[in-house]
C-alpha cells in the first residue's frame, strides 16, 4: 500500500551562515525513531515523534514541512533529547523561522560538535478523532456483567501513522499502524464481573395521569465507577453503551442501548434500555382541592393551599421481588401530608423532584399478582391563582 508522507523533516548538514535562511531541502531524511499519538486530551490530538538527526559543528538548519495535513503551526515544538541544557556541550535552539506561504518551519540549531542528536518534535494535529463505546454482557441473573470499554479512533488527518504508539488515558500504550482514512477500535478496559443493579423507574408528568393505560416504566441498569467494582481509577467518558443479556440457551439477546454520560470515579451511571412490561403502574389523581382560601374585597381568590392526592396501583408480574422508583415532578412549597402504605420510602431530591420507592414482592407462579395501592397526599402552601 502506498503510504502518505505529508510530514517531511530535513536536516541540512551544511552549516550555513546565521543570516542565511535560504533553505536547500537536500541531504538526509531521517526516519522516525518513535511516533506517539497521545489521545489523553479528548479534544486535541498531540503527536510527538522522535528522530535522530545528524548535525555538523556550527549552525544547522532543520526544516519541518507538512502538506495535506492540518497542523496548528503555533503548537509545533522541538525538544533536544541527546544534548539538552545550557552548558557548552549542549545543542542549542537558536531560532525558528516561518517561511512565507508555506506550511513549514525551520529550526536553527547550534551544535558544538559534529554528532547525532535525537530530537522530539510535537504538534497538535487535526483530523484524528476519538470516541468511546461500551459493551456489557449481563449474566443470567442480571446482577453482574462483562464490562468492556472500547476506544474508537478515526484517522482523517491525511497522515499515515506507521507503528505509532497510541497513548490513551485508560490503558497501556498500544503500537498500531493506521493509515489515513482508517477507523480502529481498541479494547481499552475490561471488568469481567462488574456488579450491576437493575432498577425500574417511572417518570410521570406532574399533571399527566394515564390511568388505566398505565405509566411508562423505564428499565434501568446502574453501574458504579468505583474500585470495589473493578473500576474507579478513571472517569468513564461519554459513550454509547450496548447491553446484551444471557438467554440461557448459550446465546444472548440485545437488551438495548443508551448513552453513558461522563462518570467520574465514585459516581453512578444510569443506563435506560427499554420499557418494563411485567410491572404495571397505574397512577391516578384522587383529589385536587383548595383549602385556606383567601379572597379580596371583590371576593376574588388571592391565595390558597392545595391538597393533592395521587394514587399508585402497582402490580408485579415477575417471579422475583422488584423495587419500583417513581420520580415525581413537583413545584411550590410542598410537603407530604400522608402516605397510606407502610414501607414506602420517599427522598426529596430537590424542590422539583421527589423519588418514591416501593418494594414489590415476587409474584407466585400461576397466581394472580398482588396489587399494591399507595396513596400520597401532598399539601402545597400559599399558592397564587394560576398556579396548580
Amino acid at each position: 500500500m502506498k503510504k502518505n508522507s505529508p510530514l517531511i523533516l530535513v536536516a541540512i548538514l551544511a552549516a550555513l551562515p546565521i543570516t542565511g535562511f535560504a533553505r536547500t531541502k537536500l541531504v538526509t531524511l531521517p526516519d522516525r525513531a518513535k511516533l506517539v499519538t497521545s489521545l489523553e486530551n479528548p479534544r486535541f490530538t498531540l503527536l510527538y515523534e522522535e528522530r535522530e538527526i545528524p548535525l555538523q559543528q556550527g549552525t544547522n538548519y532543520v526544516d519541518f514541512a507538512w502538506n495535506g495535513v492540518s497542523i496548528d503551526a503555533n503548537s509545533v515544538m522541538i525538544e533536544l533529547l541527546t544534548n539538552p541544557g545550557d552548558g557548552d556541550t549542549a545543542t542549542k535552539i537558536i531560532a525558528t523561522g516561518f517561511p512565507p506561504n508555506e506550511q513549514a518551519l525551520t529550526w536553527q540549531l547550534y551544535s558544538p560538535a559534529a554528532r547525532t542528536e535525537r530530537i522530539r518534535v510535537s504538534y497538535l494535529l487535526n483530523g484524528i478523532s476519538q470516541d468511546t463505546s461500551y459493551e456489557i454482557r449481563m449474566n443470567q441473573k442480571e446482577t453482574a456483567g462483562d464490562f468492556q470499554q472500547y476506544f474508537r479512533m478515526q484517522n482523517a488527518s491525511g497522515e499515515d501513522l506507521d507503528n505509532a504508539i497510541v497513548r490513551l488515558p485508560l490503558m497501556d500504550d498500544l503500537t498500531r499502524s493506521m493509515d489515513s482514512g482508517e477507523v480502529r477500535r481498541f479494547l481499552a478496559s475490561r471488568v469481567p464481573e462488574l456488579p450491576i443493579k437493575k432498577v425500574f423507574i417511572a417518570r410521570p408528568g406532574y399533571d399527566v395521569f394515564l390511568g388505566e393505560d398505565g405509566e411508562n416504566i423505564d428499565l434501568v441498569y446502574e453501574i458504579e465507577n468505583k474500585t470495589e467494582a473493578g473500576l474507579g481509577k478513571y472517569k468513564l467518558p461519554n459513550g454509547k453503551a450496548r447491553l446484551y443479556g444471557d438467554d440461557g440457551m448459550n446465546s444472548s439477546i440485545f437488551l438495548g442501548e443508551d448513552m453513558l454520560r461522563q462518570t467520574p470515579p465514585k459516581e453512578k451511571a444510569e443506563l435506560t434500555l427499554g420499557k418494563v412490561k411485567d410491572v404495571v403502574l397505574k397512577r391516578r389523581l384522587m383529589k385536587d382541592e383548595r383549602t385556606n382560601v383567601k379572597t379580596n374585597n371583590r371576593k376574588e381568590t388571592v391565595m390558597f393551599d392545595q391538597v393533592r392526592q395521587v394514587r399508585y396501583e402497582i402490580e408485579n408480574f415477575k417471579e422475583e421481588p422488584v423495587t419500583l422508583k417513581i420520580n415525581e415532578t413537583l413545584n411550590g412549597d410542598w410537603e407530604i401530608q400522608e402516605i397510606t402504605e407502610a414501607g414506602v420510602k420517599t427522598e426529596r431530591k430537590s424542590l422539583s423532584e421527589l423519588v418514591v420507592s416501593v418494594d414489590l414482592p415476587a409474584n407466585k407462579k400461576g397466581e394472580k399478582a398482588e396489587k399494591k395501592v399507595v396513596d400520597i397526599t401532598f399539601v402545597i402552601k400559599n399558592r397564587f391563582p394560576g398556579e396548580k
Partner: protein
Amino acid sequence: MSRWISGTLAAALITFAAHSPAKIDLVTLPARDSTELTIYNSQDLTLVRETRNLSFAKGMNEIQFSWANTLIDPTSLQIDLKGAKGLTVQDAVYPAGTTQLIVWNIQAEEATSAPIEITYFSSGLSWSADYIVKANSGETEFELQQFTTVRNGSGEDFDNAVTRVVVGEVNLIRLIADLAKEGVQLEREEAGKAVAFFAMDAMSQRAAAAPPAAMAMPARAKEIIKKAVSEYYLFAVEGKEKIENGWGKELPNPKVSGIPFNLSYEIDSRKFGDQVVKFYKLKNDTQAKLGKEPLPDGTYYVYSDDGRGGLRFEGSTTSKYVPIGDDIELNLGSDGLVLFEQKTMKSERKNFDFGTNGDVNGYDEERTVRLEIKNSRDRKIPLKLTHYIDGDWEMIEASDSTYERVDRGTLRWETTIEAGETRVITYKAVFHNGTRVKAN
C-alpha cells in the same frame, strides 16, 4: 523568488549651484551599515532606524530616498546628520509626480563623509509572545519558556537588523498603513506627536556595536534584554537578525525551570457556565522565579508530564499582559474530575402583605439552596466558588459562613476540598417581593 529592494538611497555627488537644482539620481548607493527595528504589538507600527555612511561634495548635495512597494509612512521620514561638522539639512522635497520618494538637500562646507541616520515608520511588521508551559506529573511545578515571534509583511527585507519589541499601548491618530497608502499627505506634525521615541539606550548601542552576525554566532539561544521605558517595556534581541519579507522568526527566551504554582479549580456560572474549570495560578514575582519583567499578552501552550515519558496536552489559553507582581492565571478548562451541582431544595412563602382591598401586595420567599462539589481527584484541591443570587434578598443561615459577600448579589467561598470528598454547602435566604421589597 522576487525580492523588493526598497529603502533605496542615492546620493548625488555633484554639487549644484543653489539656483539650478537639476536632479541627478545616479551616483553611489551606500549600503545600510546598521538597521534597528522597534516593533510595537498594540499598533501596526515599527520604528525603523538605519545608518549609512555617505560621502558629500562641497556645496549642495541631494540625498534621495525611495521606497517603492513597501509600507512606509512618508510623513515620518527623518534624517539625522548626527552632528557632523559642516553639514546642514536645508530642506526635504517630495518631488511632484512621485509618491514614494523624498530628496533631502544637504549643504556641505567641505567635501566629507559622515554617518547619517534615517528613521521612519513602517507597517507590516508585527510581533507576538508565545509561551510553552511544561508541568511535572504532580502539577506542582512547571518549566516556562517564552518565545518572541517577529513577522515581516512590510515588503522590505531587513538584514543585520537589531530587533526590539515594545510591550505597551501607544496612541496613533492615523494608522501607519493608511498613511503608507496615501503617499505624501503632510501630517508629520501629528504623527510626530503620536509616537513616543526612545533615545538610543545602552543596550541598543551595545547591539549596534556588535560584530557582524556571521562572526558573532552565539552558542546558545539569544538573550532577550528587557528594559522599562516610560510606560512601555522594551525587549531587545541580542545581536542581529535577518528578517526577510514574508517570513516569521521565533526567538526563544531562556527557560525558567522549577516554577512553583498552585493548582486550583473555579466555579462561576457567569464565566464558565456549569463547568468546573482548572487553573494553574502563580504570581509574576521572584518567589515564582519570575518578576524581572512583565509578561506580554500571548498564548500559553500547556503540557504536563504524562508519567510515561511523554507529554499530555492540557490545553492552550491566552493571557493578558501581566505586570510584575500581578497574577498569572492559566485557564485549562474542565478535566471532568471535579463536579458541581446546584439545587433549590425548598421554597416557602410567608409574611404576606395584604392591601386594603385584600390583594396580596407583597410577600417573602424563604429558599433553601444546596451546593454540592465532588472532588474525584486523588489530591486535595483549592476551590473558588462564586455564586450569584439575584433579587432583594437577605441571608438567614448558611452551613458554611466563610463566604465573602463580593457585592450585593455575589457570594464567594474559597476553600479546599480533600481528595475524594463531597462537600455540601446549604443556605437559606429570604427574598422580598412586591411591597416587601426593601432594596432599590
